[in-house]
């Protein structure tokens, strides 16, 4: 599956941070607060690789995806795409980069203009990037529709005429129009009905293998992420707390947060469900405005000790290719 993986990373984040300033309290109040959505992330994605990114809502996973494409403006740090600094790129430079970096959104209805036909929607990036016009563009659109499993005859129809699954296929075709290398898939199947999810997941896998695409696959569903990813990163409150090859992460999660997440996933098997000893976390995720000192997870961690409340754990290699940010990992389970 990971045949093409290797060599220099296609995408790289270095100490990437994206903060948002928001007004707090009543309208017109002067008080502001800083949301540290992404707060110092280092990661690499190899060409042809799919990196899964999981975490609870508000952990910053979508913002990280958007920051890699500079759809959200990073506050500090760097994003390198195929060696080019995305964060420092000029308007023109960014436009050229965007041809190679695309995004598939969760809500295909919200991401497509309801007044545009399918042909116009898929043709728009081709027009903007000056890639094809006239009959060549129309032919390319028909090819793209075929590629994502839609009848090319639907080109003249409008978004509201399609089901959720078909719309997501159109969103994928639009992302593929400019022949990108890298696609950020932000919860691409979570708004779809169960029976349709599998269709779209299969399509994404097939396209990846056929076109040698690199994905950042952002999702809250750990079963879906396991299915499609080569490696998986777990985010909590703006930072990566664990990152490992897929099978390693699911078989031997090291970080207590990853363990809690995995044990919370309900399994469609009543026998397993009856026997399962769940690690149930108390309370909610802390606020990304007032990030806890020390380990950000210590307020919910059932294993936390004094050190966790004061000292920030570093994301470091605990096993070959398997990094985690937890003071207790080596103590509890020696390498």
């Amino acid at each position, binding site marked *: 599956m990971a045949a093409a993986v290797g060599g220099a990373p296609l995408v790289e984040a270095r100490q990437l941070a994206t903060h948002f300033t928001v007004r707090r309290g009543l309208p017109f109040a002067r008080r502001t607060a800083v949301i540290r959505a992404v707060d110092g992330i280092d990661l690499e994605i190899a060409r042809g690789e799919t990196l899964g990114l999981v975490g609870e809502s508000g952990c910053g996973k979508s913002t990280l995806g958007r920051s890699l494409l500079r759809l959200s403006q990073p506050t500090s740090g760097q994003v390198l795409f195929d060696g080019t600094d995305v964060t420092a790129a000029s308007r023109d430079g960014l436009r050229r980069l965007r041809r190679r970096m695309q995004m598939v959104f969760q809500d295909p209805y919200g991401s497509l203009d309801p007044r545009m036909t399918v042909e116009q929607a898929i043709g728009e990036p081709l027009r903007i990037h000056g890639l094809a016009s006239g009959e060549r563009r129309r032919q390319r659109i028909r090819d793209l529709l075929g590629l994502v499993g839609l009848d090319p005859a639907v080109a003249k129809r409008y978004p509201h005429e399609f089901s959720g699954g078909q719309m997501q296929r159109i969103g994928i075709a639009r992302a593929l129009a400019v022949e990108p290398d890298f696609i950020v898939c932000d919860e691409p199947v979570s708004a779809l*009905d*169960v*029976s349709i999810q*599998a269709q779209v997941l*299969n399509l994404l896998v097939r396209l990846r293998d056929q076109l040698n695409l690199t994905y950042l696959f952002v999702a809250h569903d750990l079963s879906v992420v396991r299915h499609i990813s080569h490696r998986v990163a777990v985010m909590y409150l703006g930072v990566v707390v664990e990152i490992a090859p897929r099978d390693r992460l699911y078989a031997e999660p090291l970080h207590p947060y990853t363990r809690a997440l995995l044990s919370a996933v*309900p*399994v*469609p098997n*009543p026998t397993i469900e009856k026997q399962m000893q769940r690690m149930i976390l108390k309370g*909610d995720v802390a606020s990304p405005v007032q990030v806890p000192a020390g380990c950000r997870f210590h307020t919910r961690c059932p294993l936390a000790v004094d050190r966790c409340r004061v000292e920030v754990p570093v994301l470091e290699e605990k096993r070959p290719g398997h990094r985690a940010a937890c003071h207790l990992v080596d103590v509890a389970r020696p390498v």
Partner: protein
Amino acid sequence: MLLEVQHLRTEFRTDRGVLTAVDDVSFDLAEGEAIGVVGESGSGKSVTALSIMRLVSKPAGRIMSGRVLFEGQDLLQLDEAEMQKIRGAKIAMIFQDPMSSLNPILTIERQMTESLELHMGLNRKQARVRAVEMLQVVGISDADRRIDDYPHQFSGGMRQRVMIAIALSCSPRLLIADEPTTALDVTIQAQITDLVRRLRREFATSIIWISHDLGVVAGLCDRVMVMYAGQIVEDAGIDQIFAEPRHPYTLGLLNSIPRLDRPVTAELIPIEGSPPDLIDRPPGCPFQPRCPFAVERSHEERPPLEEVRPGHRVACWADVTKVPD
């Protein structure tokens, strides 16, 4: 039986014509039993629940026929005043979005004591004591103080706990939960399902739990009903339905989801096509256009929901235990 739903049919008038959301649905629910209702959007799970509660939105929606016997009494024959005495007191319902049923300008205390005074005949002081108790039961710490907060002061998971506390405060015989954990994170969902399991043991409340997540249902329910296009297509005990599904749609659902309890496969087995149009329906089995097992009769005649073995009902002309051609 606590609840007997018989031949329930609920329709909606739309611009395009009449939409049959619930199409001849019949099932029983025993005292203390928890039944999961699964299916995709538009399958009729929510409308079935709303029909039982007589909360189908008028004038577009209408219960056309059938009976809903609750403790032997047909709820469809009650007038609105009588129905209000049942809602909240004997049958409580919680929704996916707790804010849709919480009043944003009233404190939690006011919202809880109101129904306790109305249904349980308590005075305000007694009602407050009971309300605080219920908040403690669902794990709201510092409940005596937090009860005076407004809904927006709680997180999503806490609000759903508050909703459950409100729903259970009058000790209903039946709790109907419509996708109550769908909008929540998986760790919060685990807290809520753990809580419901505990409450079930403690209060012996019967439950109808509507969900699209087969995993949640597997961990919570005694029985599962699978709905498709407004109909029940399969109904069986929890172990039976997961181990030996007999309807092609149930089988398809179980095969199409990636599962943590199984090795990763290269490809998922999707259910091809999309759910049918509920307004302009072809004859025959509603699942037939997507069904790999369909036989000739599936095109012509709608299969009845029939018992294939004790406690296991299926609506299908084909036999899924045989490999399709």
